[in-house]
């Protein structure tokens, strides 16, 4: 009997996970590569690669010496390793997965540099000015201020 309940529960959890995945907008696999987590998680959280297509990550990695006004340059061999990881796991990468409502805004050859300029992002985050002026938020790209589990890939709270 307990076994039956356990199996039923397991199936239910699976179904819920699949439904979440289909709804598609609450979970994206986080960065798991240690070097990428460290190098790209120092100034902001390491953004899940599934938020952008591979060509966007390549463009970002090619311009680290002027990265949104920051010098985020890395030794070439580290940059190459990180780029490979990001491209593999990008929304269109062989191991990657994107959010459908985000990706439908990305033009077939477009190379957006910001997640926070995607119309899907702007629609989900259409908050009054005072929310963005909160000293704990600072900028739209500070996902962790509002999604405490963003580091683990969850954007549901």
């Amino acid at each position, binding site marked *: 009997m307990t076994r039956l309940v356990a199996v039923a529960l397991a199936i239910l959890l699976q179904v819920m996970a699949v439904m979440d995945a289909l709804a598609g907008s609450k979970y994206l696999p986080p960065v798991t590569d240690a070097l990428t987590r460290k190098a790209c998680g120092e100034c*902001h959280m390491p953004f899940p690669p599934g938020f952008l297509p591979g060509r966007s990550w390549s463009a970002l990695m090619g311009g680290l010496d002027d990265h949104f006004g920051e010098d985020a340059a890395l030794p070439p061999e580290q940059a190459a390793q990180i780029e490979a990881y990001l491209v593999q796991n990008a929304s269109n990468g062989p191991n990657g997965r994107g959010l459908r409502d985000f990706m439908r805004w990305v033009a077939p050859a477009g190379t957006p540099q910001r997640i926070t300029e995607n119309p899907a992002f702007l629609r989900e985050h259409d908050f009054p000015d005072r929310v963005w002026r909160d000293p704990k938020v600072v900028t739209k790209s*500070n996902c962790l201020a509002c999604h405490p589990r963003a580091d683990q890939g969850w954007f549901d709270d």
Partner: protein
Amino acid sequence: MTIRALSIIACTALALPLTALAAGAADRDAILVGYARQAKAADSGFTTFSAQRGEALYRNQWGSGDVRTPSCVSCHTADPRQIGRNAKTGRLIEPAAVSSNPQRYTDTATVDKHFARDCKSVIGRDCTPLERGDYITFMQGQ
């Protein structure tokens, strides 16, 4: 388990953080010695680093770098023993003061990288060896 085994374990457990602290302090001293050598080479009149000058560097509103970061305080906060917040990204930063964070200023590569990057962001130029030594000396007393 014998009392003897227990006491050995207890001693090791107590000694470990102590050796870690001592190693941290030694690494920091070595970095300061390096900056002192460079400061002396740049100005033969150099004698010692000053926590007071370091504090002035830390608190000054420079206004000559990135508009978002007029001061070290912009990210490391007015009280360096507190957790800071990156004024460009909002990400939290471990305290800059050695008393709150004994691992600070113990890895040459990290220290050099951040002086170069953060001084450029705040002042609009790199910090000199004198300024670097003053800053670490100030943080050691915090």
